């Protein structure tokens, strides 16, 4: 299972990539997409929504089930990855490239795991 090094991970299997200027990208891990199976539909929150860490940012429907996705950090939704909505297969093919939302005014979350800790977490 691929765990990308420069990201931080939540127990609910989302990743966050901190960018300059208090911004961040959020997506789901390779482990998460593998557990879900082929993704069929994605629903995401709206631009401008204010999220706290742990708030639902949307849901992902695979052929197995519908799963809520939670924001690993607090912030305001600056951009939503609309392209994914038409091509949900990208989430399976490239989970670390297929970001879901971009946040601004991000408050970093110290409780998140780094790559090594997450790798241990999913191998347990």
């Amino acid at each position, binding site marked *: 299972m691929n765990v990308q090094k420069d990201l931080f991970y939540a127990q609910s299997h989302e990743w966050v990539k901190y960018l300059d200027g208090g911004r961040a990208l959020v997506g789901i891990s390779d482990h998460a997409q593998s*557990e879900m199976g*082929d993704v*069929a*539909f994605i629903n995401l929150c709206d631009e401008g929504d204010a999220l706290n860490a742990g708030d639902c940012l949307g849901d992902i429907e695979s*052929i*197995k*089930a*519908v799963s809520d996705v939670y924001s690993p950090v607090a912030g305001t939704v600056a951009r939503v990855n609309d392209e994914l909505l038409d091509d*949900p*297969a990208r989430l399976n093919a490239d989970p670390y490239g297929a970001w879901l939302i971009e946040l601004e005014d991000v408050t970093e979350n110290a409780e998140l795991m780094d790559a090594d800790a997450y790798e241990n977490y999913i191998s347990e």
Partner: protein
Amino acid sequence: MSELIFSKSRPGRRCTVIPKCDVPKADIPHELLRETAPGLPEIAEVDLVRHYTNLSRRAFGVDNGFYPLGSCTMKYNPKVNEEAAALRSFTGIHPLQPPESVQGALQVMGVLSDCLREITGMNAISLQPAAGAHGEFAALVMIKAYLLDHGQPDRTKLIVPDSAHGTNPASAAMCGFEVVNIPSTADGLVDLDALKSAVGDDTAALMLTNPNTVGKFDTNIGEIADIVHGAGGLLYYDGANLNAIMGIARPGDMGFDAIHLNLHKTFSTPHGGGGPGSGPVGCNAKLAPYLPSPAVTVKDGGYAFTSPEKSVGMLKSFYGNFLVCVKALAYILTLGADGLREASENAVLNANYMQENLRGAYDVPFPGHCMHEFVLSLELLKKETGVTAADIAKGLIDRGVHPPTMYFPLIVHEALMLEPTETESRETLDHAIAALKELRQMAAESPQALHDAPVTTPVGRPDETAAVRNPVLRA
């Protein structure tokens, strides 16, 4: 895929030879006549029979073989039910006939309601909902009407355990409630501490399936009822798993205020393509004034349609799926009170027989005995061999067994949920156990063979993802 019946149509072909008309033709007004012929297939009887017989051979039903689909109670549908429902006195009547001319049909509804009240311990029943999720919806609409009527519009939250059927949160959302999910304990039961911190002034109700979807009877139900009622909320029973407790325990005695039942599961009427279903809603005296309308009541020595005092109104055209009710009543009267209890006892016995025989070959994630169904986790098997729950399910098809429920409940990873029901013989259960053990062996020795299964069916592995992502609904 096979040709559609429409593409087999040839002009002039017929199934029957209609004799020449020997009475004067009625003069139908021109504006009532259609301008073009209806687009119906023209086909000979032999081709018609072959078409549908061949199609039926590509499907799998409970008349073909063992169908252990968890939480769906795919028990055998006795043919005597069909005979009762086919009686001309039931098929030849019209829903708009005056009630005094169809007293027998009303009596069926009245007696069936009485039976269901006795079985569930509820005060009143409506047979109107079309199936399970519709029954859930009916109960929640009634709960909402009750809360508004009692000046409690702020009770907007419905508590749903994480082991619930997906229809529970969906029905709650359909009724405008906000869903609050609570976790289960390691034993698969309601986490009482989580429930205590979830309830409050905003709680409308708790939706609970008991026994739940991991096949466990929640023995804390008395305390659960106290917690929810203590906070001013109501208790709703999802009747999907009633087959485990008929004649043994009653939702009404457990403290539930409202329930729905699935006649097409527990009471042996067909479903899964052979429906339609029927999802009666039941309630205690508190909620009875809000039941859907019309209701059947005894009046002046006969039966009549009435409307409950504060009814939420009609939820389906006419009186529900009436002929399904006839079949369910035939089932209940055939078995009687003792027979229903025995059915539940054997359903639980069969599930435990399978669970104990599969323990060791597969990981049983929850300790102890099960009720009428049980869950296996294939998470370790997948890690070790790459063979998934879906692969094992597909392998079962090649051994004449319908796949169990896969990837549900969501709290168990790589889940297979099996519900054998009471109608299967020991030989059938032994065949399924042997097949599952053989597949476990194959997973270790030749996993690719399982990735390729099934190989004995007309269609092997359809592209499920493509079907969901790009459904083609019209040819």
